């Protein structure tokens, strides 16, 4: 029963994460300007990756491995959010059509 619930969580969360990645990629390719493209992209690497990590947690070999995955997600959250802010500032300074 516990194993089944773990598998269910994996399937649901990883699928939801992939949906965010797909949406983020489509947005990156289709949206008209830098700010909206960034908006689409950051959904993929924050929420999408978070859901995938959540889905993979039941399959982690040990608590340590699971903790490592969570740490990686937190670091990517930090880096992704900061870098997208920096790119957005640069884009706003250079004008709307950057």
């Amino acid at each position: 029963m516990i194993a089944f619930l773990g598998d269910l969580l994996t399937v649901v969360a990883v699928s939801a994460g992939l949906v965010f990645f797909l949406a983020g990629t489509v947005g990156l390719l289709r949206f008209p300007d830098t700010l909206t493209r960034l908006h689409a992209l950051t959904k993929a690497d924050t929420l999408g990756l978070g859901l995938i990590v959540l889905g993979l947690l039941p399959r982690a070999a040990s608590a340590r491995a699971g903790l490592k995955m969570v740490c990686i997600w937190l670091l990517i959250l930090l880096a992704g959010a900061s870098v997208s802010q920096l790119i957005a500032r640069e884009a706003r300074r250079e004008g709307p059509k950057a």
Partner: protein
Amino acid sequence: MPGILDFGLAALMLGMAGWTIVARKNLAAVMGFVVYGLLLALVWLRLGAPDVALTEAAIGGGLSGVLLLSAAERLRDTAPTAHRIGGAGRLAAAALSAAIAAGIATAFVSLPEPAPTLAPAAQANGGATGLGNPVTSVLMAFRAMDTMLEKVVLLLALVGVWSLARDQCWGGRPGPRHRADPRGPLAFLARVLVPIGIVVGLYVFWTGADEPGGAFQGGTLLAAMWLLTMMAGLADAPPTRRRRLRLALVAGPAVFLLVGLGGLLLGDAFLAYPVAFAKPLILAIEIAMTLTIAVTLGLVMAGVPERDEAE
């Protein structure tokens, strides 16, 4: 057996390489090169070479990327047609590159099966160094000469960068003074990420004895963290005339040389470690090397001395 992931990775790499070559803008080409480097790191990982993958990600993707980015940034203001290579020059470059690629491919295809390898010998003698990671054993003991000369080459690269300084700036602080909004995202990133990055860098260096990692990868991470604090304006680059800085720059090769000469005097050969002290000696060299690599790479990325201010 290569799977769909490997084929996808190979196709992506070829596409990225082609895109990097045909990209019209310098900045786009550099971005392509960085992505190419990160993909290459994944390829090394798939080939079971995590040590090479770490180095490729740190040096090929990160460090070269930063250097090329700053070069592209400097070239942006110059006229793009100033030094355009003509059609004949481009053809010659393409022919040379193709010939080199064909040569490497021929050499690779004509390797005997199984390919000659020293891996079993390195694995079998790993115990002599007291290290669990055979790659570190090779780098620090079996082919220590190469590793030492690599560090000297790094130092020469830094001398090359510094030699571009104008006379009155010799010994001054490298690069422009970076100023960033102290409450902005870059300063925030530098404040939060740098402590974590320093711990990870030291861990990568320390774990290199038994797991993938080592002085080069750890040192590169430390250099990147230093550069981040400089770019965020939290710390200024030190004046390059400072004595302690220069001592840090030569520490790695100097300790390596001392240990090597000690081997010549007390042991069998240059860089021969007495087996009982192999691990502590290697550790001492690695500590000095990590310091030197971090400082050297940080200063290479910080750039040419441009400011001569009173300290």
